[in-house]
């Protein structure tokens, strides 16, 4: 009988992810410990930045899931992020005083983008739209939503106490109403408030990121993950083995929207701010760059590249608008040296080195599913 912890690790490992060795997991735990203690040795500003990077990583994971694992490139992933953000904000502004928490707002931030994804996914996948058509259609949807949100400055665009606010971003209808609330979890008096600038919020986001990462590791290495990958490689062939690929694509699209919506919700609570610019081309492309540079076919690689590139963008933002340009150049460079991503390629290399030096057991563990 296997001990339970090795069963759990086994469920998280598999051919669909890099890093299946003991070495990888020990390293991951060390990184996590460093991340957990980050607020104790970093400045307040750095912690706030780190929260933002963790939120971006969530968004990147959502695109990684559909694009890297199921072959559905969406150029409108930011739309789910923003729809989630707006939904959280609208419900939050309306209910924070009466309910005293943001439980429902948080749920709305996830459900709203999922509903949008369900409708769009049904329209696209049940009509067997593929590839570039899906990518472009999603970009257009995002741009249209942005266009709509931009012209909502008129007070008539209000949902209860929340005014959509056009280019001013989401705000309360009247000065007396509360603004976009902090994440406030719990019931009645027993609530925990996570101020977006606090270490508590950082730990909350970190915990969510870890959970989503582990959940996705489990998912992509399960039967569902095998089918996702088969769809990515040849969806028509996969269908002839008896899988309703329309349903597979629709379901993964909705799951991805849920994760993106959660990220958008956290983002909105982080800055207590959400704006129509989030629907524009740049943020949509930015997610694609994060995912592509790291390696769209591996979850961990995508987190690494998102944190690295997100940090770089912030550093570069001091020099004005160069950041997207630099990221674009990095993308081109990455595609030339490693088509499936720089971090993935490095990860595979390290995996091989470890295997070459490590014990026989580690060699077996690395090669069992480490390389695709």
């Amino acid at each position, binding site marked *: 009988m296997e001990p339970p912890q090795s069963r759990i690790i086994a469920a998280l490992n598999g051919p669909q992810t890099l890093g299946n060795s003991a070495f990888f997991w020990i390293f991951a735990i060390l990184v996590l410990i460093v991340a957990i203690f980050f607020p104790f040795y970093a400045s307040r500003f750095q912690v706030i930045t780190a929260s933002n990077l963790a939120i971006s990583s969530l968004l990147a994971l959502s695109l990684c899931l559909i694009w890297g694992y199921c072959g559905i490139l969406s150029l409108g992933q930011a739309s789910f992020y923003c729809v989630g953000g707006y939904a959280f904000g609208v419900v939050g502004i309306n209910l924070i005083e009466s309910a005293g928490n943001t439980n429902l707002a948080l749920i709305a931030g996830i459900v709203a983008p999922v509903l949008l994804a369900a409708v769009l996914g049904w329209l696209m996948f049940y009509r067997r739209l593929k590839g570039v058509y899906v990518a472009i259609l999603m970009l257009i949807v995002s741009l249209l939503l942005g266009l709509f949100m931009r012209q909502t400055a008129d007070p008539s665009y209000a949902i209860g106490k929340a005014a959509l606010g056009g280019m001013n971003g989401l705000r309360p209808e009247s000065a007396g109403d509360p603004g976009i609330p902090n994440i406030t979890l719990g019931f009645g008096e027993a609530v925990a408030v996570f101020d977006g600038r606090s270490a508590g919020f950082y730990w909350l986001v970190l915990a969510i990121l870890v959970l989503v990462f582990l959940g996705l590791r489990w998912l992509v290495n399960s039967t569902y993950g095998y089918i996702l990958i088969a769809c990515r490689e040849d969806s028509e062939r996969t269908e*002839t083995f008896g899988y309703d690929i329309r349903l597979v694509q629709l379901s993964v699209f909705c799951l991805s929207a849920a994760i993106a919506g959660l990220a958008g919700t956290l983002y909105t609570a982080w800055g207590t701010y959400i704006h129509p610019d989030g629907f524009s081309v740049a943020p949509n492309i930015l997610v694609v760059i994060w995912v592509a540079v790291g390696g769209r076919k591996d979850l961990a690689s995508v987190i690494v590249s998102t944190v690295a590139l997100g940090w770089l963008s912030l550093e570069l933002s001091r020099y004005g608008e160069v950041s997207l340009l630099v990221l674009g150049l990095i993308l081109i460079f990455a595609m030339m040296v490693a088509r499936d991503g720089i971090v993935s390629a490095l990860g595979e290399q390290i995996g091989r080195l470890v295997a070459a030096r490590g014990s026989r057991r580690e060699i077996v563990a690395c090669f069992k599913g480490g390389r695709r």
Partner: protein
Amino acid sequence: MQASTLERVVPGVVADVILDVRNVTKHYGGIRALDGLSLQVVRSEIHCVLGPNGAGKSTFFKMLMGTERPTSGSIHYDGRDVTRLQAFERARLGLSVKFQNLRTFGDLTVFQNLFIPLRRTCGPSEIPDRVSEILRQVRLPGVENRLVRHLSHGQQQWLAIAMSVASRPRLLLLDEPTAGLSAEETERTAEIIHEVNSEGMTVVVIEHDMGFIRSLKARTSVLHYGRLFAQGSFDEIAANEHVRQIYLGTE
């Protein structure tokens, strides 16, 4: 017993038909890949389809599997009109295909490739055993963790056959299963076809290799310009002057 039914199939005698293709037409722009094809396949038989290049054989299989729709006509499987069913629905009814251009998942491992068809009928814990069993059957033992694109063409052909058989279909469609195989491997393919057929699987095979078709001892249909040109036992077909002209003569 099942193998003998097909030998008794005579035109005009009501047979247990598993597949009934009625007047199927498929246009690709101006090209008529299929032009009013009607053809019946009897339950538990091995049925060979031959015809010159471009006769519409592969198109015929695409219509059967449902990856493409006929322009007109209907397809009846097991007494049921499946013309409007999606490919996955037909697969669930027991149809399975090996395409001419293999369509294995090249960037995945052999294990991952076999996982997909097997998982429809097996629990995840049974799969490793079933994979090694199937790989032994097609004489590819121990290649589980190899990337499929690193296999030789012959090995990929085997794998493609293995994938189509793995789900234990009731009607198996094989489009040129011996392309790229050695003589010995071709013989083994015939053995496997007989093996799965004796388990009750109906098999339709598109082939060019005459020796192979002869070894299958199967009822044979000849397609020409998207129509049924001739039908009969292999010997009858081989002796048919017209078939010789359109097909054998060109070889």
